């Protein structure tokens, strides 16, 4: 079945579309929440400010969660992953989807290992430390490096399946049932990123 890629105006979808096309997935961008009924799986991408997720109002969240309840997989990428949580300090008055417990917060520039301050945003390739088996990480070995670009992070919780570290540890990959999220950009993380997208497309049937 085809993958619904949600366009809520937070960044450009071109790279995600190209990566999904490269692995042979059938992708569509739904114009209205009702179109999600046709989706085998739903991807919420996005970069930028948490406030942008305001465009994902009640009709969208209802339609997305209806698909999840039917057993369809949901993948949040970067800002889309942070949105899966209860909220973010970046936009305190606007809640996230709340499918995962916890609240996103800003990375600290304080460096525990050196006198120099860390660069924020966290931009570049960093490694994954796996904490448990997960369908979204099948075929992606521990220590694999992936491409991040962000200033806010999700906390380590029971849903964290891989963490990464920049000043402190944060959730790099989360999974709870059919819901998964990645803080990095699988569409920009070379072969490892494509493997994660393949895992999702397979789960979508």
């Amino acid at each position: 079945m085809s993958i619904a890629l949600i366009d809520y105006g937070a960044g450009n979808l071109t790279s995600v579309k190209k990566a999904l096309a490269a692995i042979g997935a059938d992708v569509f961008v739904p114009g209205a929440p009702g179109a999600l009924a046709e989706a085998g799986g739903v991807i919420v991408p996005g970069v930028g400010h948490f406030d942008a997720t305001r465009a994902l109002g009640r009709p969208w969240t209802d339609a997305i969660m209806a698909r999840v309840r039917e057993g369809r997989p949901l993948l949040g990428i970067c800002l889309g992953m942070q949105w899966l949580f209860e909220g973010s300090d970046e936009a305190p008055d606007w809640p996230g989807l709340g499918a995962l417990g916890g609240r996103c917060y800003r990375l600290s520039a304080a460096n525990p290992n050196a006198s120099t301050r860390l660069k924020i945003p966290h931009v570049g390739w960093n490694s994954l430390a796996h904490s448990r088996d997960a369908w979204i990480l099948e075929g992606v070995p521990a220590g694999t490096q992936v491409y991040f670009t962000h200033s806010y992070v999700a906390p380590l919780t029971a849903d964290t399946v891989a963490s990464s570290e920049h000043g402190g540890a944060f959730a790099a990959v989360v999974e709870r049932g059919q819901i998964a999220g990645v803080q990095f950009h699988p569409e920009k993380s070379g072969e490892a990123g494509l493997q994660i997208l393949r895992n999702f497309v397979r789960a979508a049937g």
Partner: protein
Amino acid sequence: MLSKRIIACLDVRDGQVVKGVNFEGLRSAGDPAALARRYNSEGIDELVILDITATLERRRALADTIRAVARELFIPLAVGGGIRTEDDAAAAVDAGADKVSLNTAALSSPSLITTLAGRYGSQAVIVAIDAKHVPQGGPAAGGGRFAVYARSGQAAANRDAVEWAREAEDRGAGEILLTSIDRDGTKVGFDCDLTAAVSHAVSIPVIASGGAGGLEDFVEVFTTGAADAALAASIFHYAETSVRVLKEHLRQHGIPVRL
């Protein structure tokens, strides 16, 4: 731990990769998509396509070249050269660029930085700064030590590179691509003095460029120069140094890299 990035720059003119010395004397180095494929297989972390004559000839970045590279490579791709307006940036992004690099246009219309950061996010906006040493702090540097030049190194902007980098960050830039005009294409090493001055002055990543010659130059720019990433063209194009050999050398010197 966050890896130090190695970025290959493809200076493109008329659909071909070219490279000169001190911004002049260009010679051909091949097909952009073929080079991009080779670098990707060697483990390059990111690619920059610079349409080097775009500003001078008022041409837009080569959308066909961007498309050809973005179609098969799934690593970050930045595009610069000739991006003067929001429409120019949109054309590059629509063709597959993840980041756009502004140079001359950022100097003449700094509000473009903020406009593009608002539309695509700061992570998509690189401000490229071409700078020259001014030992005595002359007027070309606005009293500072490093003078900024626009129009491919041809016009003094009467600004100091450190001060301009800080302003670019304040206006929404996500990264600084810092090129030493003195060192460009000379292979005598990066300007670590310039790189460290800018890197310590901003909180966003700084990409050092200009002067890469040998493996030790990269060690030095990541330590003394405090660079977050290093960009090179010539040494990779002519296969003088493979990306993999470079990264293994950096790892041996305790510098975190993606291998």
